[in-house]
């Protein structure tokens, strides 16, 4: 290795420091560009080899940072906020880690970005993509040192990527036509995703939860309808899926606590006072009695409003804003359940789930679409009372209630569950499935190596490098589990060489090569494909760089 990248624990930027001779070279280049006087004072420029070096170092450092979280035996990180409050997050999710660290290296930022894109696109594989890109760059660096031109490397990577992609497509399988088998696939995928997270012990439970929730959606791709509520207390095992909708709010005083066949009006309207919102508007009167009259008129206005709302023929009224005492009492008198202060997110989801629309004027009761559900009642979870809507109009909707020992665990559980849900959603849309545990990588590496042996010229070297980079993914999984990665990867290679249809992959639990189909380690095709493509693309972009110009920082104060 030309560059030994040591991370400094107390380094705020958390990026690698360079080996001594690299720094010398960098400073020399820096001085040159500053002497030329073209750039503004304070701006810096790094050229040619130095620029490439800086990007390699940055990207590899970022990849190494998240590397240890990969796989079922990957470790977690504490993210300690340096801002006020010193909040602490504990996570295993690559995207969450990368999103929150300080990065001051352009190449490193590219990797952070692809991890974000991966999160948005497919929701999982956020660590894999960064590790893969990092490995491609590490290999590329070796080639560059052997005087292979970056463009040649890129060309080789591209061809290798195309080859790998077609292999991946050919080895994927699809069970969508058979619902029972498809459900099993989904369960396996969910379990594989969850196995690297905090939920790993209860993965059976949560995989079922996630699959049930996704199958309820019936292919409708909106995760909006799945509501996740976190309540401290209990254990993760006590988390459950509820077929209705749960709102973490209170019912007003003196109102019915249980309504069957509810007709619900979801609104966003001020229920404290309807006042003239013109600044400086005021009334002038000459006696106290008139002030009292105005007050009475205001109250009357509110009454009128409440009457109009009740005239919709509803028995439940949910408002985003406060409901003051007076309207609350009126609703209580009319036997209408009134729920105040449903937050914005909650109200939109409520409207969606209950099949109503959010209303803010009440003049035309006949045109308003009311929401409905079979039963509204109060339930108790932990120490809190919540409102439970069952038999909602949107049958797809459901709520997952997460329980756990602390808020850290709950937050991480929510992130993990979200990842699983995203992956499942993608799989429902594109039902192709591949085995996990490094199986596709080994297969792809094999095909790429075969391609390299047929390819003339220096490109072949890049292809071989690509194959090596692919194999580091299963190797990293082994390393994290404290296993002998070289031995296992070699075994896998041999198994796949002997049998073209081999299903061997890394079996982390037993610490050897194992049959992925029997172990039920499945992954979504989309995730794997996305890892391959974005990883290659990112490394390509970084390889192309030969000049980094940093603008002079803006003067402050």
């Amino acid at each position: 290795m030309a560059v030994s990248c040591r991370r400094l624990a107390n380094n705020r930027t958390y990026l690698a420091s360079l080996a001594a001779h690299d720094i010398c070279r960098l400073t020399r280049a820096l001085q040159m560009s500053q002497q030329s006087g073209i750039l503004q004072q304070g701006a810096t420029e790094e050229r040619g080899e130095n620029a490439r070096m800086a990007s390699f170092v940055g990207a590899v450092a970022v990849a190494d940072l998240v590397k240890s979280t990969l796989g079922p035996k990957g470790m977690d990180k504490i993210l300690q906020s340096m801002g006020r409050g010193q909040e602490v997050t504990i996570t295993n999710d690559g995207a969450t880690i990368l999103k929150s660290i300080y990065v001051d290296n352009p190449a490193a930022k590219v990797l952070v970005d692809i991890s974000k894109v991966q999160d948005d696109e497919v929701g999982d594989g956020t660590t894999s993509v960064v590790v893969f890109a990092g490995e491609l760059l590490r290999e590329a660096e070796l080639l560059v040192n052997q005087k292979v031109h970056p463009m040649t490397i890129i060309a080789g990577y591209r061809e290798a990527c195309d080859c790998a992609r077609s292999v991946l497509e050919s080895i994927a399988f699809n069970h969508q036509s058979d619902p029972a088998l498809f459900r099993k696939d989904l369960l396996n995928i969910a379990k594989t995703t969850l196995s690297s997270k905090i939920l790993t012990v209860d993965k059976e439970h949560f995989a079922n939860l996630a699959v049930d929730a996704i199958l309820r959606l019936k292919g409708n791709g909106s995760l909006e309808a799945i509501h996740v509520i976190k309540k401290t207390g209990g254990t993760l095992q006590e988390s459950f899926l509820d077929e209705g909708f749960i709102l973490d709010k209170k019912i007003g005083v003196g109102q019915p606590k249980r309504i069957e066949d509810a007709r619900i009006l979801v609104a966003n309207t001020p229920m404290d006072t309807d006042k003239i919102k013109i600044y400086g508007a005021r009334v002038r009167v000459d006696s106290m009695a008139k002030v009292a009259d105005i007050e009475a008129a205001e109250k009357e206005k509110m009454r009128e409003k409440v009457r109009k709302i009740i005239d919709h023929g509803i028995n439940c009224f949910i408002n985003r804003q406060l409901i003051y005492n007076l309207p609350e009492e009126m609703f209580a008198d009319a036997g209408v359940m009134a729920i105040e202060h449903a937050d914005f997110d909650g109200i939109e989801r409520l409207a969606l789930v209950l099949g109503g629309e959010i209303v803010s004027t009440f003049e035309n009761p006949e045109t308003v679409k009311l929401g409905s559900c079979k039963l509204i009642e109060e339930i108790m979870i932990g120490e809190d009372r919540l409102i439970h809507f069952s038999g909602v109009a949107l049958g797809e909707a459901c709520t997952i209630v997460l329980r756990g020992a602390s808020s850290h665990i709950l937050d991480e559980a929510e992130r993990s569950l979200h990842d699983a849900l995203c992956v499942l959603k993608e799989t429902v849309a594109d039902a192709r499935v591949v085995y996990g545990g490094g199986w596709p990588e080994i297969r792809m590496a094999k095909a790429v190596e075969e391609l390299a042996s047929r390819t003339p010229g220096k490109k072949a070297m890049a292809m071989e490098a690509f194959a090596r980079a692919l194999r580091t993914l299963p190797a990293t999984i082994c390393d994290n589990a404290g296993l002998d990665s070289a031995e296992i990867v070699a075994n896998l290679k041999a198994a796949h060489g002997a049998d073209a249809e081999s299903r061997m992959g890394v079996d982390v639990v037993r610490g050897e090569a194992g049959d992925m189909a029997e172990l039920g380690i499945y992954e979504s095709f989309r995730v794997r494909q996305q890892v391959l493509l974005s990883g290659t693309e990112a490394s390509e972009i970084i390889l192309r760089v030969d000049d980094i110009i940093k603008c002079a920082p803006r003067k402050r104060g």
Partner: protein
Amino acid sequence: MPPKQKNELYKESARKKDVRTSNIEAAKAVADAVRTSLGPRGMDKMVASPNGEVIITNDGATILQKMTVTQPAAKMLVELSKSQDVVAGDGTTSVVVICGALLKKCQELLEKGVHPTIISDAFSKASAKACEVLESIAIPVNMEDREALIRAANTSLSSKVVSQYSSLLSPMAVDAVLKVMDPARPAMLDLRDIKVVSKVGGTIDDSEMVDGMVFDQKAAKSAGGPTRMEDAKIALIQFQISPPKTDIENNVIVSDYNQMDRVYKEERNYILSVVKKIKASGCNVLLIQKSILRDAVTDLALHYLAKAKIMVVRDIERDEIELISKTLGCLPIAHVDNMKPEKLGSAKLVEEVEVGKGRVVKITGIENKGRTATVLLRGSNKMVLEEADRSLHDALCVIRCLVNKRFLIAGGSSPEVQVSMQLAHWSKTLQGMESFCVRAFAEALEVVPYTLSENAGLNPINIVTELRRLHAAGEKYAGINVKKGTITNMLEENVVQPLLITTSAITLATECVRMILKIDDIVPTR
């Protein structure tokens, strides 16, 4: 790969070990801080907050909450005791002590080169097995069996400063919970339906459970209003008895002296008309909600209300409205025009009584009383009172645990010893690392009897080995009798506790340990 790579990998893992060790050390330090407060002979802690306030407590959750820790792993332990508080309400110290002991064992295992994830998996299996063992030695309890419930509350109170009053507080806690429990829907039990009013003055002996309701607020009598009302008709109002105020800004324009007089008069008339309407509804006790927008009640209004022989309690918080309306069977009234007799609650007697230095308003003999309960706590000083409040809360939680999961187990660390023994036995049937880790888990649980006897000034090694011997001989309920300083059968000594407390302590502590184990890096972020 060249050998250099290998070198680098080694350094990397050395750093990771450092992070893990420092996390474990920090968490252990926190556990050690609360260790001495465990058990009936446990010591209290004095916590001085930055603003000079002093708290004396024996409650693990409170100590940890007031202790401002910054280390991330230490914070997790604070969270842990908080969630034990939410789940079970008691055992907040035990959970932290168990967690500390488990972490200590982890450190030993890690030094021997066991991979953290293997420890984590084994621990989770061990905790599941521990719960099974606990369930097997649990004794079902009937909600009608008041004595058994009182015994459980006694155990919880025995470690607190108020332990000598447990004969008073335990029945109180049991009665309060039974009163608010809806037999048809026991799962809906909400401890917030129990109102605890604490007043400085007197001793804890003077605490009582009030059959009715107590308000911390005094009756307003600046205008000489009544402070005692028999056959009370109580109205809970959310409107204000003060000069009118509109939402829109208003000016009253006064052009000469005569008009000023008129404005005064009008104000009087306005308030008088409001008071008359109140009187007309038959109400003679008025509870007024606090208002931020304007005076809830003015001196003038108080004067008229006093004239009309209406007793007034003001400054009722909005959060309390629900509880009050539930207890008194009245409905809140938000406008004076809605003052209707059917919305009023009625009670035999509403009276302001002197309690220690202060005064409270007591409502007794309520008709159609809802499922709520009120406890009036007394104490010689603020610190004792606060601690009594916390202890009572713990006792209430213990009873609630029993409502949710109707099983009792013996106290005095006998379940821990039993579980430890069973697990050690079970570990022999397992293979490899797993067996090793389960064994360590079993040993870690012995920290509870060890600490308990240490805090009681007994010889911990003697006690623990003796306990092991007895349990191995089949005495499932042998535990430490702290008062006598010996080992006795806990069931005969009536030292019992809810099953839920011990199971949740073990599962929560294990979950927390597993989380700490999995961390290999602390990354500073924005």
